[in-house]
């Protein structure tokens, strides 16, 4: 089986012919998700099925690389390329609006995040994966170390430090793009295999990874100099610092687990496709953060 990277539809595995036919059919109906995927990943001009099969083969081919490297490379190309994602550009030296946009949309993202982790835990039988997800849950919502503050709590404090009350933050519903992305991440967590769900979820942690510049990213998630000085509030520094100083091993550990279990279950191509779907969702979600932030700057 393979999956469509634009809608997650399972397709029979006979090379990339069924996927090419499906993409051409859905694009022929002007479906935005399929047209977008073709435009951004393979070609902006219509190409015939045979040529499309060839390009899909190339696109999904791991070559000498590991699955984890392939994922990292695609991630960098999407968010940290020559022209980085607009939210990443805004976060280099963030305004109050950008940080508030982050808080108001990300509270919803984090609540889905832990829900997805819990689904993976419930659906796997691998102790290493259970331990990995448990650690995630603790960092995001719990207090693994009594002296530490959960990520979700740090996020809310950042919002309060920018002048929006906790009650107001919690009462703000997500923007439509955030709501849609969350619904799709929930579908991935409940309907795809748990290895695919892991890829859709934990590959996104690469966004704050400090090592990406060494791997070809043009910029960091934000300019590390904002962690010093007082261009942003202390609570904002505390929130951003936590992601920045997160254990580098933690981030690569997920890719290692995904790689191993994807190979063991013969699901590498499904993992690639589900990860690609998650990339587009994350792209839209980051734009929603910007859009929310702009409401504070008008």
């Amino acid at each position, binding site marked *: 089986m393979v999956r469509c990277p634009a809608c997650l539809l399972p397709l029979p595995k006979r090379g990339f012919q069924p996927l090419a036919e499906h993409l051409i059919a859905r*694009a*022929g*109906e*002007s*479906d*935005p998700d399929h*047209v*977008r995927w*073709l*435009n951004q990943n393979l070609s*902006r*001009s*219509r190409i015939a099925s045979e040529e499309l099969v060839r390009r899909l083969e190339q696109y999904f081919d791991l070559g000498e690389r590991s699955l984890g490297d392939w994922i990292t490379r695609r991630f960098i190309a999407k968010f940290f390329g020559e*022209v980085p*994602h*607009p939210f990443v550009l805004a976060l280099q030296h963030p305004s109050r609006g950008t940080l508030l946009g982050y808080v108001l949309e990300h509270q919803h993202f984090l609540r889905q995040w832990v829900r997805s982790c819990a689904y993976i835990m419930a659906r796997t039988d691998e102790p290493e994966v259970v331990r990995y997800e448990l650690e995630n849950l603790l960092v995001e919502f719990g207090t693994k170390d009594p002296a530490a503050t959960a990520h979700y709590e740090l996020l809310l404090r950042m919002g309060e430090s920018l002048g929006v009350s906790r009650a107001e933050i919690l009462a703000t519903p997500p*923007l*439509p*793009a955030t709501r*849609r992305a969350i619904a799709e991440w929930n579908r991935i967590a409940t309907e795809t295999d748990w290895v695919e769900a892991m890829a859709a979820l934990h590959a996104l942690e690469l966004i704050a990874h400090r090592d990406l510049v060494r791997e070809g990213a043009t910029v960091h998630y934000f300019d590390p100099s904002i962690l010093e000085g007082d261009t942003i509030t202390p609570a904002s520094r505390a929130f951003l610092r936590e992601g920045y100083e997160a254990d580098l091993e933690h981030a690569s550990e997920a890719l290692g687990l995904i790689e191993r279990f994807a190979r063991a279950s013969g699901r590498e191509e499904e993992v690639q496709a589900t990860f690609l779907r998650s990339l587009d969702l994350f*792209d*839209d979600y980051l*734009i*929603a953060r*910007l*859009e929310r932030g*702009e409401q504070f700057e008008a």
Partner: protein
Amino acid sequence: MKLNYRGCAICDSTWGDLREEVDGTRLFFCCSICAIQFRHLVERVKARTGWDRIDALEIAGDRRGRACVATRGDREFRFEIAFNSDGEVRRFRPAPAGVPG
């Protein structure tokens, strides 16, 4: 309305198969989001300039941000526009003077 793209009126893609009339011109769009974006673009330009119609549009950039030049007769309006994932306008502003289209 004269356009610089031969494919989709706003992104130049030749995938898709959507034809819609905008301002009396029948245009090709690759998908419904592009059609929505284009309608919003035309509305914003007309509202900003007070023009009854646009003669020509030159568009550069991608969904994350576009730099455009609209013309009506001998008048010209340069602007930047960006959309959210629903095709709604997220940012619209006249281009700073001196910036080539």
